[in-house]
């Protein structure tokens, strides 16, 4: 998994404190790692790759990838 985390750090955030996100971008694309520390439930999520992408899912992960 770690070999995909290369290139440059890309800012990201989630709306759930128990879910951490880390994103990187290299010449081949984007890699987003999500660490779900919740022990009691799974989560449906939207991974938004642009600032204004709307989400109605319980978990929204926003990555400032610079895509429209």
């Amino acid at each position, binding site marked *: 998994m770690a070999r*995909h985390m290369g290139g440059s750090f890309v800012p990201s955030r989630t709306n759930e404190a128990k879910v951490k996100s880390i994103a990187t971008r290299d010449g081949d694309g984007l890699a987003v790692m999500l660490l779900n520390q919740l022990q009691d439930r799974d989560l449906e999520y939207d991974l938004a790759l642009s600032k204004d992408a709307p989400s109605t899912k319980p978990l929204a992960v926003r990555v400032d990838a610079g895509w429209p």
Partner: protein
Amino acid sequence: MKVAGWLPRETTTLLRLDGEGRPLLLYTYGRQHNVENQPPEVLALSPNAALPKASTPAPAAAAVPADSPQPPVPTLVPAGYAGSPFGDRRNPMAPQRIPGRLQCEEQGPGGLELELTLGLHLVRVQFLAGNTNLDYLEFRAQ
């Protein structure tokens, strides 16, 4: 642009996307993978995705007779590593006596005591307070 997905509890998930934001690969690594020392599950989300060589599923374990010796416990500890004694301003840096009680350095609000016998077999785990991550402990049957 967005991608929808499902995030299982207590997992580390890695999503690989191409240069245009299309999902290629999905890695999922859960507690059970850690316990069984297994590689993460890899799912190709695109026909263009190249699966890593290590993602081929592990062969099923063969049946072991009940009286056969226990298989070696998977470990991340380097061969020959004997540990290094702990020391601080109150405790001298010297090997602790085994059999005996091993006291760990307290790194947070919690604490942990381990009782060991010769051969570094774990006998008892006692939580003193708070939460302690047991994922990094190596268990061996006594």
